[in-house]
């Protein structure tokens, strides 16, 4: 089986995880910029992080013949501080032409505050000016529904943004239809507790169709599983889904969306 891992925070994972993913059939890893579990003290901390995403992680992945791609942003959990956000936004253009940068992400909302929305608008403007793909994080748990609605409204009101070039991630049963009906791509994140389990993810694929969906593990420093995508593919087999349908969902779909960036090339 072949698959793409379109959302993994490998900076938080051990090298053995790269090995396990490669052995499970992973063909490429994509790493959005995210909250490190603590607030960085200055924009220079983000400059170091962007260097890590564009220089160090690609080398670590290459040891297992895995192409490594990344997304750049200041995440919504650190977006309440508008001065810091502006400083980080000013750094991003220095990195945007690096050979593994797919676009702007994972931007979005966390607690659905006014400052988070201001910073999201600035990221969307940046993506529009540099013609970049967008990867959107939707809030956790009780904040997800409201945040998803705010994000969709914001994106739909930006005429420079084409919905087919935006993936809104971490959808669940109550938000997937909102995202798909608005014309965006949707990501289902497979987590042991929050977000979505493999059976629920397959239920959604069966209910909403696989046309603009992808699966990801979003493995990071919390409870998460870097092999969640291939494990879900295995569960799809037990339900009787064809190899062709599984390949469409876990390999060809991420390739279709990410292939809109000239950077995303697999040998």
């Amino acid at each position, binding site marked *: 089986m072949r698959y793409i891992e379109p959302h993994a925070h490998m900076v938080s994972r051990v090298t053995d995880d790269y090995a396990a993913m490669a052995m499970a059939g992973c063909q490429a890893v994509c790493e959005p910029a995210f*909250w490190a579990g603590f607030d960085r003290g200055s924009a220079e901390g983000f400059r170091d992080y962007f260097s890590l995403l564009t220089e160090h992680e690609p080398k670590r992945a290459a040891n297992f013949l895995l192409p490594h791609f990344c997304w750049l942003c200041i995440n919504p*959990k650190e977006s*309440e501080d508008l001065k810091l956000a502006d400083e980080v936004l000013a750094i991003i253009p220095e990195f945007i032409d690096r050979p593994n940068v797919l676009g702007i992400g994972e931007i979005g909302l*966390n*607690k*659905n*505050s*006014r*400052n*988070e*929305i201001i910073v999201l608008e600035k990221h969307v403007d940046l993506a529009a000016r540099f013609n970049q793909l967008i990867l959107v994080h939707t*809030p*956790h*748990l*009780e*904040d*997800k*529904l*409201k945040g998803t*609605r*705010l994000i969709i409204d914001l994106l739909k009101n930006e005429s420079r943004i084409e919905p087919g070039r935006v993936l809104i991630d971490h959808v*669940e*049963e*109550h938000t997937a239809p909102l995202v798909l009906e608005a014309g965006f791509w949707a990501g289902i994140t497979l987590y042991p507790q929050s977000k979505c389990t493999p*059976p*629920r993810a397959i*239920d959604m694929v069966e209910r909403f169709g696989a046309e603009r969906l992808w699966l990801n593990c979003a493995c990071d420093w919390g409870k998460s599983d870097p092999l969640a995508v291939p494990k879900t593919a295995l569960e799809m087999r*037990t*339900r*009787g889904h064809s190899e062709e349908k599984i390949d469409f969902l876990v390999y060809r779909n991420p390739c279709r969306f990410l292939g809109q960036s000239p950077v995303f090339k697999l040998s």
Partner: protein
Amino acid sequence: MTRDEVLNLYFLDARSKLIDLAAFLDRVEGSAGEDDFRVRSFRAALRHLSESEREKAKAVLLTLSDPTTEPLEKATTKGAAGAWPQFKS
């Protein structure tokens, strides 16, 4: 999948989770203190399971969601509780 195939694949797992839910409520009710918004939301969400509606997972998620539409003036925390703190009924 047929009803039988679904049950063969998922019944034991669902049975285990059902007993876990029951044991969780036993644990909550055996502890000192009062129900808070999380328990109230949880009990409200549970009611969807015995109804005939098709989209039970969606109904549970909606019950556990913030239904408001206006942005917060300021984010004073980063975390989420899993239920809306203003939930009443």
